[in-house]
């Protein structure tokens, strides 16, 4: 039984009159790739945004805040040879829902320990590819020289030229740059919200290979939202099937084979 990266308990979030996310208990295992699946409006992206604590805007939303617990456990050993010393490896568990925005900023869990790639990448358009990657590094006081070296290495890994302007990037390149930026601080946990949506076959293959290469590190936890059967077959080790804001089935691929087959049969 592998260690848990996230432990969710009594999670409840009412967003408007039509939707409520309600998860009594759920575990996301450490060092595995977990795929969040489900029909539209089942709560996949909502759950992912809560795991990354990026659910709210600048102002507190008029909807009531989520209740319950989402406990994040930093890994005992951080992944990768170039691990960020601030990645929190070996630190104690923390209840993410118990932290307000100011404490989240101070704790620097986001970015350092939990990387996030959004469906709409949220790239910084007035900066080139390299600046997009190294901004979070320089803000943390890492020297421009070290940050640039790290940025160049990540862009080489993702196959992007450092001086490319964001406006000139294709859909696949934007996704890869977003992934490079999320990896800048070498977080042990990666949350990917529909990273393969809207990509042409060659861009899709490139990004799949890139994510597959990240999975090679057995200490890295990846949680991704996808609708595509190919991604589940190729990437998933653990599956969470959501429906109407609740968990219909969760477990390792073998354990959820029947509900998964039923879901994929209905949504080929």
């Amino acid at each position: 039984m592998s260690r848990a990266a996230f432990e969710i308990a009594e999670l409840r979030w009412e967003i408007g009159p039509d939707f409520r996310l309600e998860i009594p208990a759920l575990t996301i295992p450490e060092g595995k790739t977990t795929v969040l699946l489900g029909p539209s409006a089942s709560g996949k992206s909502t759950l992912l945004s809560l795991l990354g604590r990026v659910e709210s805007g600048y102002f507190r939303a008029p909807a009531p805040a989520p209740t319950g617990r989402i406990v994040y456990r930093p890994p005992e050993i951080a992944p990768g040879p170039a691990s960020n010393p601030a990645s929190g490896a070996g630190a104690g568990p923390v209840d993410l829902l118990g932290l307000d925005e100011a404490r989240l900023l101070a704790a620097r869990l986001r970015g350092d320990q939990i990387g996030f790639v959004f469906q709409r990448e949220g790239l910084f358009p007035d900066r080139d590819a390299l600046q997009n990657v190294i901004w979070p590094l320089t803000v943390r006081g890492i020297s421009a020289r070290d940050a640039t070296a790290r940025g160049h290495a990540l862009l080489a890994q993702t196959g992007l030229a450092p001086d490319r302007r964001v406006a000139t990037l294709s859909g696949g390149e934007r996704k890869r740059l977003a992934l490079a930026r999320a990896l800048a601080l070498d977080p042990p946990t990666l949350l990917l919200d529909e990273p393969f949506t809207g990509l042409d076959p060659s861009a899709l293959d490139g990004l799949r290979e890139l994510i597959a290469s990240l999975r090679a590190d057995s200490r890295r936890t990846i949680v991704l939202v996808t609708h595509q059967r190919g991604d589940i077959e190729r990437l998933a080790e653990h599956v969470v099937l959501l429906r109407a804001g609740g968990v219909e089935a969760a477990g390792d691929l073998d354990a959820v084979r029947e509900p998964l087959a039923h879901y994929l049969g209905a949504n080929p």
Partner: protein
Amino acid sequence: MSGAISSFGHEGRAHGLVLWRALRALPRSRFGDFLDQLGRLALSALPLICVAALFAGMVIALQTSLQLTRFGSSHLVADVVSVSLVRELAPVFTALLMAGKAGAGLASELGMVVLSGQAQAMRALSLNIDRELVAPRIAACVVGTLLLTMAAILTGLLGGMVLGSAKLGLSPVHYMNRAVDALAPADFACGLIKSVAFGLLIATIGCREGLRDKADAGELGRHTMTAVVTASFLVLISDHVLTTFIVAWIG
């Protein structure tokens, strides 16, 4: 009625939150970001403000001279123009132009940051939006409004001098001497205190409207328009309130 009061209170709290968070983040923000924003928000408006102030100075001098001539006091044109420019007109029309330029700029720029998901991406990287984006913009807008008001005073006086010389036959040196002699430190304090307050108002409203959650480009446009209209309206209202307090305080 209670709905309007509740909405007013909600908006007041939201604006206060933006300002409070920016002030807290300001000591940790970078001076280079402030200078960058000062150039974008204020220096870019300098030609516009100077030309507008030049013509405003000329118009005020012309209108004032027409009225004063009726009472045989046309020699007081420079005195009246300089005091009204410094205490009232330069701060107010600079603020109105800044509400249109900087207010709209802040609301649309930060609005795009929210709409395109950059704000969410910044949170995901633990980048402090207040430190990185809001605080430098608010500081630049306040300092920029102050500097532009000073520039408007100078070019407004110059406009009055040109008009006085060309239309009223006054010597430029005589006009400027009278204009400067008519001004007391309290006049400058009145104008500059107001310009700082207006800058704060425009920046806070622009940032608040920009940082609102928005679903589409239509909302971005509406929030930008709201920033300009609200800031312009509040500049005029607060001008009266500030003038009342400043007159009671320093004369």
